[in-house]
């Protein structure tokens, strides 16, 4: 589902490519990003997925102006990507964030706030709220070199939010966090979403993306392989890779076998109740069956007047979709 009006776009990338040249005497060309086009709507949480080397960080660097594109254009918040005007409205949390060792949590927040053109008064007005939000209240005067990785990550998130940016670009925000910390980050992102902020999230943790993101893009080998809501992605990939189906039928396995309604690969077995088998109840399990096959099976069972007590249609997970897409790209 692509937005129809460009007014609603927070990020608009068109045919973006980046090629690295390595070496001086014998330069080697290494294409990192090829013809990537994507749009991120204002106010949505957008997830960028992909294996290592897929080009995710390259894309983020191009959006921030850290890299110069070889080809194509990118706009962020209606400004050319990398322009000062665009960067004023972006909050960025880099992967493996390192704070200068001489800072305390508080002085680091002030330093990055000043770099974001905030006055000390503006920073002072926001600092308590943010330290509360990222659960660093009471620890803000400690030297950052004594912070755990999770604390540094949360401090990084605080500095990214400090100047109340319209767009947050978060590169692996939950990296190094314990489950509690991840949950806190998710809560923060939810709050941001409620306040209409756009979040561009790059993460390896698919379950997290599934929980937080409105839309997802999957990249592999420098190309965009899929984009949309999670449902759209699964649906668009379900036709090709059908899911499994499980049915509990009020009939013995023999009876079902006699009907010859099972598709190839289908299994019928007696339902096991903790060592006690009820011969009048059977479970049918069929792998890789499309919707038409399921319909035919249900019709045949009902025609034989068998009662279907339960039916479970297992669809592919985001992880399966991701694995399938990446696998297909590599092959």
């Amino acid at each position, binding site marked *: 589902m692509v937005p129809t009006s460009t007014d609603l776009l927070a990020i608009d990338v068109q045919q973006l490519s980046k090629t690295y040249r390595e070496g001086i005497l014998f330069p080697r060309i290494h294409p990192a990003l090829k013809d990537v086009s994507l749009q991120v709507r204002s106010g949505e949480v957008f997830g960028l997925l992909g294996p290592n080397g897929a080009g995710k960080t390259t894309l983020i*660097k191009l959006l*921030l102006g850290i890299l110069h594109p070889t080809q194509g254009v990118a706009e962020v918040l209606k400004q050319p990507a990398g322009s000062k*005007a665009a960067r004023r409205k972006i909050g960025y949390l*880099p992967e493996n*964030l390192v704070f200068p060792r001489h800072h305390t949590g508080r002085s680091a927040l002030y330093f*990055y706030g*000043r*770099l*974001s053109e905030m006055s000390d008064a503006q920073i002072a007005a926001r600092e308590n709220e943010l330290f509360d939000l990222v659960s660093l209240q009471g620890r803000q005067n400690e030297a950052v070199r004594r912070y755990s990785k999770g604390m540094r990550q949360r401090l990084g998130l605080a500095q990214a939010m400090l100047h109340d940016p319209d767009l947050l670009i978060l590169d692996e925000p939950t990296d190094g966090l314990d489950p509690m910390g991840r949950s806190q980050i998710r809560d923060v992102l939810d709050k941001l979403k409620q306040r209409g902020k756009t979040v561009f999230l790059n993460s390896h943790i698919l379950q997290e993306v599934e929980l937080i993101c409105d839309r997802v893009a999957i990249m592999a080998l420098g190309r965009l392989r899929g984009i949309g809501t999670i449902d759209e992605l699964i649906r668009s990939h379900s036709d090709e890779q059908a899911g499994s189906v499980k049915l509990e039928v009020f009939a013995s396995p023999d009876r079902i076998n006699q009907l010859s309604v099972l598709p190839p690969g289908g299994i019928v077995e007696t339902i096991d109740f903790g060592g006690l088998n009820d011969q009048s109840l059977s479970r049918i399990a069929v792998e890789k069956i499309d919707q038409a096959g399921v319909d035919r099976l249900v019709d045949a069972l009902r025609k034989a007047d068998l009662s279907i007590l339960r039916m479970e249609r297992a669809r592919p997970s985001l992880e399966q979709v991701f694995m399938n897409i990446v696998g297909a790209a590599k092959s």
Partner: protein
Amino acid sequence: MKPYIAVLYDSLIESVRSRVLWILMAGWLLILVALFPLSMSEEETYRISSSDLTNARAMLDQLAQATAGRGTRAQRAVYQKLDEDLQSTLQDRLRTQKRVPVGQLVASLNELLGREDLYEKEAWPTAQRREELKELIEDTSKNPAELQKLNRRLIDLAFPGSIRSATGQATWVTYAGMKFMDPLPFTLRQIRPFIEATLFPFIMWLGLGQIAMMVAIVVTAPMIPDMFQTGSLHLLLSKPLSRSLLFLSKYLGGCIFVALNVGFFLVGLYFYAGIQLGIWNRGILWCIPLFIFSFMIFYSVSALVGLIWKNPIICVVLTALFWGLCFTIGVVRGFAEGFLKGPPTIQSIVAVGETPIAANQQGRLLFWNASLNTWQVGFGEVNGQRVLGPIMDTKQGILYFGRTRFVPFGLGGNDSPRLDMVKLPELASKASEASEASEATSQPPSASDTSKKKTRNLWDDSRLDTAPELPNGTSEILPWRDSFLSVTPEGLFGFDRESASKAEQQKISVLGFDLKLPQATEAHKKLTDADWDYRRPIAANSVPGTDSVVLASNGKLVRFDFDGKKLQKQKSIDLDIPAETVVNLVVCGRIAIVCPDAMTPKLIDIDLMQEVGTLDAIGEKTVKRTAQCADGKVALLERDGRLWVLSNDPSGPSPLNLTAPNLVGQGNVSSMAFDQTGRLWVAHHVKQLDVWDNQMTRSEQAFRPSRTTPEFLYDYLINPFYLVNPKPSAIQETIQYVLKNPGNKISAIDRADLDMPQAVSDPWQPLWSNGIFIAVMLSASCWILYRQDL
């Protein structure tokens, strides 16, 4: 706060929280605390120190002779008042030549200073002729200080040449109030300029310019590479900052570390110098930005390397290599310049006909070798000495020159300088011929004609003959009448050629060889009276066309007229300058041009002994050399190589006409002399020499010696490489300039100091040249950063 200011402020915080900074600060504090008790004090004293005894052996010999009733009455009077121990030791010395410790002599002489019965009218008959002594002798209620002064003056009179005349001032180096060593032979006013111009720059060069600079390079090397850590840099670049300005802010931030160190030490040094030495020199504070600038040169290299390789170790190594390269090139050039530009520079010329004879600062006598087109060294390649003269006796064809040990600040020259005579009879005839030819045709004979008639080279060692050594402490010899005058702190001595030739040479036998030693004093007759009381620095010059001599010393100008036997003191004038001022002096007609160090030359009518004007066109400059011509012309040479000519034209609108002629080498002149025909010989650019006609409009002859291989290498390899190479060490010259207190007029303690190299003429030039280098390095860094994918 502006983002870039925030980067600078962050660098300040980073520096303040760095342990290395506090360790260095503690080091500076320790140095300042150790330095603080070191001070100098000046006292009025006439006590004798061992450094006052310029010839202790002679003094002991004279005292030993006094034991047998020989020597002057004053010496015998001193001997009789010495303590008994020393008296018996001196008696032993007369018999056995036993050595007497100088310390014992000094202690015994100092005891004499407090005795009320030292003065005897018969022993010191001339004492009453000196105003200062007369007052002290007649004062019956002398206080101990006055008694000490009187007795010291009497001892000085008793042993002329063996003891330095007391100035009455002693400068001590003290540590925590305790006096250190013997008193220094300078006043504080003389020392201060050298502390400011030499000692402070040296301390700063060593402490800040070398040690602290290397520490700072090591400490600040990681700052730029650290900025490039992935997690750090990308966050910075995501902020609304310009890459170039972010880099420049980081670069300047690195300089804050150095600023804190340098500022702390130099502010401490400023207060130390002010409180303990009384030198409140704001130039010390100006050195803070200069040292930061000096560091910026190295840090611009470190920053560029850090940008390319992102590795602090490579930064340190390559910056150290750059430092080493600059240092090596600077040292090589400095050595080359020291050997090729300083010592070989011609410092005096005597022109006989068409033959130039010169002396250089290396202490060598030079003759022009036309066949090889070079200067030929004659009569021994003596280094490290100063040539007195040379002076040509054109009638006899004898060249006189002295050699004295050259030690800056007037510390040398207390020994008896050697006098050499070179027999050049053919030049005597040439000189006469040249003079006659000039009068007839104004076309002097060419040098080639002269050389054809030579049978022996002028520099042939067989021409050299020993001559009686010059009087003790001779600082200068002047052409006077048919001979020359020796200027010494004990008086003016005239050289009597007749006596010299009659004087028997002393023969001694060493290892079976007979050596001839010249007798010292018979040939040099003291022409001044016993009331001579002039101390160094002394300047003297003859009055052209007369036998009179003018002399400047102790802040006064005095004229002496010759009565056939003695130079009699005539009128004098107070020059209104400090007594220790180095002066150059020349007479143009009846006007003496007195050129005090770093002051406007004064014009004094030597008949009336009145100041009649000043040479404002020259201004407050130091004139280091003068030359006078028989026709009344005078040449003045400024210390920075600018030549002025002053002509005496009583018929003109202004009797004295001052011009800076447009000569080849103007601004780089090292010496000049007029010849008998009034032509001006000008030495410039180390070894080049031009002969200018009387009007100074046409160069009649030029002597351009061929380049030697070292000179060729210097001109075409070392110097060009140095010029294109960045020169961080040249900042030292700017530092010396800002430390030079404009209130300090003194630039020399002795006249010989005026030949020492001066600071560069444009002290700010190193800032421009190094500033361009920094700008190039930073521009390259910004361009790389702009182009770089990070």
